[in-house]
């Protein structure tokens, strides 16, 4: 997995200053980034899938973090985006905090038991690690964030 993590997560997967004004706006903006990078085939459909998942239960996991995600036919290739937003966004979070850091996960239906899912699972687990979250929140350059993710995603 190690040899592939730098292919899986590169600076393309990180968005600083997303500039979103709401949860919906954030998901829309991130979907557009995914489309531009060729990971999804349709912004609106993908967005709908993510919002559906959000309706089932919030992905605002607390500590200003959210992990919206979708496993859908509109995802061409499994990937993730990490975005930071200066303004805290209302996300109905578990601890009531507004969200400033978003991990968006897009999973292709074709992927099953592969290394990408494994990396997403590992990163999800790391979100329970206070040191990891602190480091991600503090990091303010793409390079720095990438370094933290790549170190942990192994």
């Amino acid at each position, binding site marked *: 997995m190690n040899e592939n993590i730098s292919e899986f997560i590169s600076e393309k997967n990180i968005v600083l200053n997303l500039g979103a004004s709401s949860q919906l706006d954030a998901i829309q903006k991130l979907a557009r980034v995914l489309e531009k990078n060729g990971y999804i085939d349709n912004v609106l459909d993908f967005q709908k899938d993510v919002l559906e998942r959000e309706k089932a239960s919030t992905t605002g996991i607390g500590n200003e973090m959210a992990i919206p995600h979708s496993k859908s036919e509109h995802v061409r290739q499994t990937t993730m985006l990490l975005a930071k937003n200066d303004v805290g966004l209302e996300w109905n979070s578990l601890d009531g905090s507004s969200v400033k850091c978003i991990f968006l996960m897009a999973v292709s239906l074709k992927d099953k038991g592969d290394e990408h899912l494994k990396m997403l699972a*590992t990163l999800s687990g790391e979100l329970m690690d206070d040191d990891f979250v602190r480091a991600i929140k503090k990091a303010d350059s793409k390079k720095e964030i990438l370094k933290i993710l790549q170190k942990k995603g192994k």
Partner: protein
Amino acid sequence: MKIVGVTACIAGIAHTYMAAANLKKFAKKENYDIKVETQGAMGIENELSQAEIDAADVVIFAVDTTVQNEERFTSKKILEVGTSKVVKDGRETIEAAARLAKGE
């Protein structure tokens, strides 16, 4: 204290693994033995053996869906919670499991 757990969420992408990580984190803080089986998009991982289940003082199901191979846990003390609750407050879940194990 020996705890075994199973985590499973609807999409099997994130909460399954966050809940597993948080159960382990807070069990370790209490010096409890814990092993957590994840039932996610990658299938069953870190599978619990019948011997491990039999030896456990208590079982935690952190699930938003049905547990696969649930018959392995017949006659065990089981604490069932949603994954979000474990993500939000892993400590409370571990404490509740310990209370259940002690019959409190």
